[in-house]
């Protein structure tokens, strides 16, 4: 009979219409400004620079301006200029820090390759998506001060990833302290006995072990 297909279709739309009043599966809109969907932990938008402490972000940036992310960034939207002097980093070792670190967010496509290739876990992906600015030229070019955010913020938005990074950095820090203690101990020992052949000091691991896969 000719009309049955149309009637079945009308039945489906009627079921959806009635369902939308009581069945949450058939009423899927979240009213954005009032209701907000919970962002999954892996959500990534634009990168930000991790700083150890919140009160002195510029002083405790983890970034050592090695410019690996600048080379690896597909659209080339990161601009880094090294600093002339050095400053101590979390392990107390003197490191170069970035004098200029700018990301052009009008070009960045949040692909998080910079996070993957950074050997120092200095740059992580943010979860901020309300980024409208009034100034197309200057407003979207974020400089070092705008990008830096404390490590606590990183722990809040990416808990599991931050836990892994924390474990790795702690291991690195402990290794650095053991080595410093080992280097200090022989200095004390020769004072007591003839200087033994100084074991070739293993070069301080410039970079912690190559970045784990779970970036």
């Amino acid at each position, binding site marked *: 009979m000719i009309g049955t297909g149309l009637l079945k*279709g*009308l039945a*489906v*739309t009627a079921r959806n219409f009635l369902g*939308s009043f009581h069945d949450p599966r*058939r*009423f899927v809109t979240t009213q954005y400004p009032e209701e907000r969907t919970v962002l999954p932990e892996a959500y990534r938008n634009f990168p930000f620079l991790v700083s150890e402490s919140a009160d002195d972000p510029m002083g405790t940036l983890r970034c050592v301006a090695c410019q690996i992310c600048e080379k690896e960034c597909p659209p080339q939207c990161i601009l880094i200029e090294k600093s002339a002097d050095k400053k101590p980093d979390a392990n107390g070792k003197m490191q170069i820090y970035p004098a200029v670190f700018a990301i052009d967010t009008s070009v960045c496509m949040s692909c998080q390759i910079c996070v993957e290739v950074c050997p120092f876990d200095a740059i992580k992906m943010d979860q901020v998506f309300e980024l409208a600015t009034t100034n197309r030229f200057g407003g979207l070019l974020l400089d070092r001060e705008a990008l830096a955010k404390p490590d606590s913020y990183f722990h809040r938005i990416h808990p599991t990833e931050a836990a892994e990074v924390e474990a790795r950095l702690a291991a690195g820090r402990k290794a650095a302290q053991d080595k410093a203690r080992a280097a200090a101990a022989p200095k004390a020992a020769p004072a007591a006995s003839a200087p033994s052949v100084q074991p070739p000091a293993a070069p301080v691991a410039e970079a912690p072990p190559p970045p784990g896969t779970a970036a």
Partner: protein
Amino acid sequence: MRPATTYDPLLERAPVVLRDWLTGGLPGPARWLADSLITIAALLAVFGLLFAFLTLAERKILGRIQNRPGPNRTGWGGLLQPFADGIKMLTKEDIVPRAADPVLHFLAPVALIAFSILTFAVIPYGRDLVPVELDSSLLYFFAAGAATELAVFMAGWSSHNKFALLAAMRALAQLISYELPLLLSVVPVVLATGTLSATGVVAAQAGWKWDCLPRWVVFTPWGAAGFVIFMISALAESNRSPFDLPEAESELVAGHLTEYSGFKYALFFMAEYFGMCALSGMAVTLFLGGWRAPLPALEFIPSYAWFALKLLALLLGFIWIRATLPRLRIDQLTRLAWKFLLPLALVNLGTAAFWSLSAAWAGPFQLVRWAAALGLVVGPFLLLSRGLASGLAPRTYRYA
């Protein structure tokens, strides 16, 4: 002839009493003028608001069918949305293309609105609530309705735009080919009720059989078939889906409306909704017993409320169909009119004649009468639909 209304007649006669109170003191001709002005004002107010809230209802129902809320930002639950649209339409710039024919371009929406509003004059909204009492009001109604085709073609032709031209051609083909089934589905009603006046038709549908089944035309076999044909043709006459070919957004961008903007664009939509309301109003009058209550017990509800309820039911049906069905192609659409609806309407005329002749048959023969009438309705339907949907069937597939 008026059945004794039980308790509050005041609510029933309220509109007429109000009007008499307003124009009581005026002498003869001035009073007639005041009465008609009040009627016109009431009509425009009621149908203007109905148009406004119909656009909102359409977007809300479409939204709910598509699992989303529909407009809910303007006013509580989106109630101010029509007024927001109105203001937007008024403030939008009215662009007239340089190549367009300015006179026709301007006149098209005006003509469309004028003819659509003309049709409201003869629909009986309630017990003696008829703006103009004509004894051949059906004839007047369909004559005014038919003129809208001219205005749509004017719009398409004067915009001097390829898409608008294609749409104008399609609009002409569609509206003319659906005029015939529309009228032919009305002829059996005229034949059965014996009058061309709308109030006469409603009067003929008075009373209840065994005190529970109203004597509406739709409860007779030929009446039901006529109602279905009328509604399908009404869908096509008001360019509603699945027959919204003239302004088929997927092919012709916006059809004959492509070169219109601002308030003229709003006028076209107002005309479309007025056309839909007028045709639904006439369907209610002809087939669903106009302003009559379905049960004697429900007589206390005023007659114009019943008319409004039935009208809204039909309009929601229009919206429901629009939300579900895709669009027909122009040649399929005209084939449906000429090879399917028209023959069915003619056969329906025969069934109505047989029905009224066999009215006087005694008891057991009533069953024979019903069976014959149903056979006369369903038989041609099955026969013709086989020809129409030849070769169209869901298919089975083999797997490699």
